[in-house]
């Protein structure tokens, strides 16, 4: 399809431009750009599955934390790139496991159980570390240069965007939209819904896993509570919903907007910032389940009808 190719080319062009950032930006701005890219990739990968299917997954921080621990355990034996890949695969494997178990649940039940399973992963790792390695946290020695981390996260963000574009225009994307609209109807028209859901959920979890692995080296010391921080998952959901989880550009634009605003607020008013965030989430879920993009679309629709 022509538009798909155009979207992929646009993604590639953005990638080429953004790849120059380490030579152009100050350390502070590069860190900010890194944050934008990370949240764009997280939101894109979340929206890849949750957007069309209307599932609300809160497991993002679990995948992220697992990925981070893969790096913590393997850096030194594995090169950075391999650790990132392994982190992604760990995210996918965990998602496949929990997906096979709980994807028959819907709505709040699914949200709560994915959150709970994330906590389970967190506490399992805490327990394992304490019992077998007698440590509460790990020091990450010899991290790669900031530019390398930036390019890795950029590559992951581009891969997430490309995957989202390809899924949307593929039969997988159609199947996911059918599942979101009426799962049983999709099944009676030939979609192996269970398999499709587990596959897509698992594939989308590669990105938070790999991002966790890539970002872990930014901290010199990591412990379960810092990398399994549920805030990462909430923020991902919020960004995707704010932008419109059904759209492609929505999560990207919203990730940039949100990261910049939150960085500003976090520096100025750390407590008010969290309150604002909570309020925003509530308002969005109540009044704008389709995100800001749905406002725009509605307006276009009306304009078109006139």
């Amino acid at each position, binding site marked *: 399809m022509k538009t798909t190719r155009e979207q992929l080319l646009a993604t590639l062009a953005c990638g080429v431009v953004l790849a120059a950032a380490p030579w152009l930006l100050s350390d502070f701005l590069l860190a900010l750009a890194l944050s934008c890219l990370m949240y764009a990739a997280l939101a894109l990968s979340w929206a890849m599955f949750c957007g069309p299917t209307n599932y609300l997954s809160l497991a993002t921080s679990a995948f992220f934390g697992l990925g981070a621990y893969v790096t913590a355990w393997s850096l030194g034996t594995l090169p950075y790139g391999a650790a990132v890949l392994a982190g992604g695969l760990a995210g996918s494997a965990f998602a496949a496991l929990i997906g096979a178990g709980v994807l028959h649940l819907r709505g709040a039940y699914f949200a709560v159980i994915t959150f709970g399973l994330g906590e389970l992963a967190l506490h399992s790792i805490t327990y394992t570390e304490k019992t077998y390695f007698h440590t509460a946290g790990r020091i990450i020695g010899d991290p790669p240069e900031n530019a390398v981390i930036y390019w890795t996260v950029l590559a992951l963000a581009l891969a997430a965007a490309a995957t989202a574009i390809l899924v949307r225009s593929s*039969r997988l994307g159609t199947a996911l*939209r059918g599942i979101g*609209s*009426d799962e049983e109807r999709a099944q*009676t*028209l030939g979609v192996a819904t269970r398999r499709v859901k587990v596959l897509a959920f698992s594939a989308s979890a590669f990105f938070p896993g790999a991002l966790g692995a890539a970002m872990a080296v930014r901290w010199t010391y990591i412990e379960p509570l810092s990398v399994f921080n549920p805030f990462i998952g909430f923020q991902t959901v919020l960004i995707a919903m704010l932008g419109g989880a059904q759209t492609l550009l929505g999560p990207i634009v919203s990730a940039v907007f949100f990261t910049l605003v939150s960085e500003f607020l976090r520096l100025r008013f750390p407590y008010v910032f969290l309150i604002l965030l909570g309020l925003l989430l509530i308002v969005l879920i109540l009044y704008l389940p389709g995100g800001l993009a749905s406002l725009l679309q509605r307006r276009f629709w009306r304009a078109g009808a006139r």
Partner: protein
Amino acid sequence: MPAEVLLAARAITVRFGGLVAVDRVDLEVRHGELVGLIGPNGAGKTTFFHALSGVLEPDEGRLLVGGEDLTGRAPHVFASHGVARTFQTPRVFREMTAEQNVRFGLEFAGRTRAHAHHAFDDAGTILGVLGLEAAAEVPAGALTPARQRLLEIGMALGARPRVLLLDEIAAGLTHAEIDGAAQLIRRVRDELGVAVIWIEHAVRMLMSHVERVAVLHQGRKIADGDPRAVARDPGVIEAYLGEEGEPVREAA
């Protein structure tokens, strides 16, 4: 030579707690058959359809599609073996356009199956046959309920069925629309050799369009055969008169 049996239900039983909704029902439909399925409210018709399409696993009995035993398999397996259905309350994909709704079946259940006739191989043509070509780009949720019912047929046809299960497609349609739908169903049957099982609440209308009719009453099959003979069957008359006096006799 009798035609190939496409769908065979053997002693299908479905229970909901203590209630036996479908009670040891046997039904065989052959290539090219057009069979009506009637019965008073609560007779178990829709539940029987749920079993035939895999949506609901029967507690007992076996289901054979094209000779293959699919008992207990998921609905998508039934669909990929050529069993397509409509739902009594239209269940179109509301956010997708009418054309995307029809294409859905073509892309999944219908993907690897072949049709003998090109008219039913393309979403645009299917919409044309249904008289919905003007609505192709309209989101299905914005169509009238009557048009959603027609679209349901289109979705089922997109799945390239060997067996087509129609659940009350005529409700809410005008007489002209019902005649159109009936003609379409005959055409599908004639051109593709599809076996059709058609549930309808409007018994008289249904009797005039099918060549064979089966009657369910309190979960049991109480009659199966030529519509005129069935309409004279004392058991069938009793079942209807006992309930609400549906005008079966007028069909004769």
